[in-house]
């Protein structure tokens, strides 16, 4: 059992941290989020070139540097601390993850374009009526000659406004709820019949509603086996879930240290409010939630290579714990900041908003607790 980072991993963290401290301060982030584009292509290029981040967690077989989930965890935690909006999760964790696991013939080619910064991916999987039941898919893909024709509607596709391609889950066969009959497709953003309505999100990102009106997708853009994609979808979502646990840890670190700083310097009744025992205990509770979230994130990350049920249990346990913790730490950070915590001006509220959205991302705490139970029953 080893919880130590390698020298390279420690270096990676330092590089990312230094870069973000330099180029991603909060006021710059605020300005970027309010801009028409909402992101910085030059930052993405820096991730690609200067920092080599886009290949850090991808295997050498795909042209990456041979890292894996631990590298992703490190990068996502640093991104959480800086509230990075650029689409690393969709592109590298989800897109790259699919390329790693699917055995798709064109994987290497797309991976190289990801690593160079040229290709950005968004995951169009969510549907309104499904909520967090991934096998419930109403978007259909019907074979027609050398192509598939996609029809349907994907909800709140995070990062789609900045993406060059979408990864789409669609049903090639079976009932709406059937675990069989799901397939994965790579779709170009500019495809005919693809209609996107772009919008900002409450936590500073951009997303789209995507409508597929008979979008033709070449058959070679089917990723993985037709009708058998659910295990791959679940694996990739688990990897993304572990990654956002790490991002939430980064947010929680800032929420916690920001609260300590504020409480130490805010004086009322002639003393710093940090001297009040009730608040001290609260900040201790926040500390414990944060520390154990770190532990759970390690668990999830290190179990990503385990057999599916073991992996899924670890990831869901982690997400349940981390989601609940992020809510607790976020709410109490605002509370201890008092009125100042309610302002748009301070960074603390923005960390709270991202932490809030992570709770609902890839499943709420309740959803994941149920998943842990279901997997326990099946074991």
């Amino acid at each position, binding site marked *: 059992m080893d919880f130590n980072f390698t020298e390279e991993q420690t270096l990676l963290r330092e590089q990312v941290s230094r870069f973000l401290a330099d180029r991603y301060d909060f006021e710059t982030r605020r300005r970027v989020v309010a801009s028409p584009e909402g992101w910085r292509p030059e930052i993405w290029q820096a991730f690609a070139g200067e920092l080599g981040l886009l290949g850090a967690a991808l295997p050498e077989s795909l042209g990456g540097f041979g890292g894996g989930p631990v590298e992703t965890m490190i990068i996502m935690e640093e991104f959480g601390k800086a509230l990075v909006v650029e689409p690393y999760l969709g592109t590298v964790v989800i897109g790259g993850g699919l390329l790693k696991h699917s055995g798709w013939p064109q994987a290497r080619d797309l991976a190289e374009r990801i690593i160079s910064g040229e290709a950005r991916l968004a995951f169009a999987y969510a549907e309104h009526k499904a909520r967090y039941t991934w096998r419930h898919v109403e978007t259909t893909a019907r074979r027609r000659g050398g192509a598939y024709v996609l029809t349907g509607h994907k909800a709140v596709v995070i990062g789609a406004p900045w993406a060059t391609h979408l990864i789409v889950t669609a049903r090639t066969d079976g009932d709406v709820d059937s675990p069989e009959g799901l397939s994965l497709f790579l779709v170009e953003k500019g495809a005919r019949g693809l209609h996107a309505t772009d919008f900002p999100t409450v936590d500073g990102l951009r*997303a789209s509603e995507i409508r597929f009106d008979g979008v033709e997708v070449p058959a070679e853009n089917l990723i993985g086996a037709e009708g058998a994609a659910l295990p791959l979808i679940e694996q990739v979502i688990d990897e993304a879930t572990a990654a956002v646990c790490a991002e939430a840890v980064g947010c929680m670190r800032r929420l916690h240290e920001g609260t300590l700083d504020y409480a130490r310097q805010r004086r009322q009744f002639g003393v710093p409010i940090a001297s009040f025992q009730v608040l001290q205990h609260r900040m201790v509770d926040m500390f414990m939630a944060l520390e154990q979230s770190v532990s759970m994130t390690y668990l999830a990350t290190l179990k990503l290579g385990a057999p599916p049920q073991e992996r899924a249990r670890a990831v869901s346990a982690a997400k349940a714990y981390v989601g609940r913790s992020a809510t607790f730490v976020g709410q109490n950070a605002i509370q201890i900041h008092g009125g100042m915590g*309610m302002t748009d001006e301070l960074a603390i509220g923005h960390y*709270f908003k991202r932490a809030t959205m992570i709770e609902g991302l890839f499943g709420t705490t309740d959803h994941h607790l149920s998943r842990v139970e279901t997997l326990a029953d099946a074991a």
Partner: protein
Amino acid sequence: MNLEFSPEDESFRQEVRAFIAEHYPPALRGRGESVEGLSKEEILSWHRVLARKGWVAPHWPVEYGGAGWTPVQRHIWEEECARADTIPVIPFGINMVGPVIYTFGTPEQKQRFLPPTLAGDIWWCQGYSEPGAGSDLASLRTQARREGDHYIVNGQKTWTTLAQYADWGFFLVRTDPTARPQEGISFLLIDMKSPGVTVRPIITLGGEHEVNEVFLDNVRVPVENRIHEENKGWTCAKFLLAHERTGIAAVSRSKRGLEKLRAIAREERSGGRPLIEDPFFARKLTELEVDLLALEYTVLRVLASESAGRGPGPESSLLKIRGSEIQQRLTELALEAAGHYGAPYFRGFPEAGGNVPPIGPAYAHRAAPAYFNMRKTSIYGGSNEIQHNIIAKQVLGL
């Protein structure tokens, strides 16, 4: 003892329900209880209807324009307004400074300020908190220096709700910097159009413009605008804060909120099934329902003791604590119910291309901003931590 509403109470309920159905301004119907996005006149339109009927300040003594209702009737009124999703009457005049003026004011002050407050012709804001005086309100530093028949006021207030619409404000100011903090404060009424008054917006977490900073730069305030004696303003402040707390429990609004949340859970789908069929989500609603019952009956007990002549005491801190927790829990569960559609943000990034058409179901549109905004309820009106201290000290004698 009994929990039944009398036949008279039931016919009162029918009467007020019919009045609301007939007289609630058409322009406000179907919009819900939030005043966000409404103009000042739109917000005042309901106030004016009620003022004409004599129902805008039901709890005021009849001699000053109150409706002479019993506490149970006032509770029924709140329930019927909540049931109809009416916007609230803005509380700063009717619930806060009005009672201070009729309790501590001179006959001239009552005559001058009470009728226009009732009518809605004066919109009040509350100048209490300062950047350095939040929980420790008595440490406030806005100064009022006496010069002949005026005070010259200098300082800064913050978190001043809806000051952007205010005609007048009631301000706590320091008139004796040498005395013990609570003994050097006066209660001044300031015309917001006075030279030297500047209002600056503060944008809050959900993107709202609800609160403001108010800067006072050599503002001249006639001495006759001081309520109660000089340096006795803290008495008025404490009186007002205790009254603020009973209303702040918002039981009826929360009951209506829970009804709406159940409706959302029936509509939202999870794996194709209604979310309400998820036993874990349903259980959370039941827990909330039980907590709300506990709060409701405690409010009724407090109201009953009020009708026996006892004013709101420190146990009203309980109502504030539990009431705010319930409001927060409601918005938290509503955001959870919104699922994926909790993410889109409609307030607008004008630079990002103007208005975005609503995305997803109507119940999701404000779910996240409402959740973020409600974090204020455990902070304002005396933070919940301070409320715990009040109960510990003044109820439990600890």
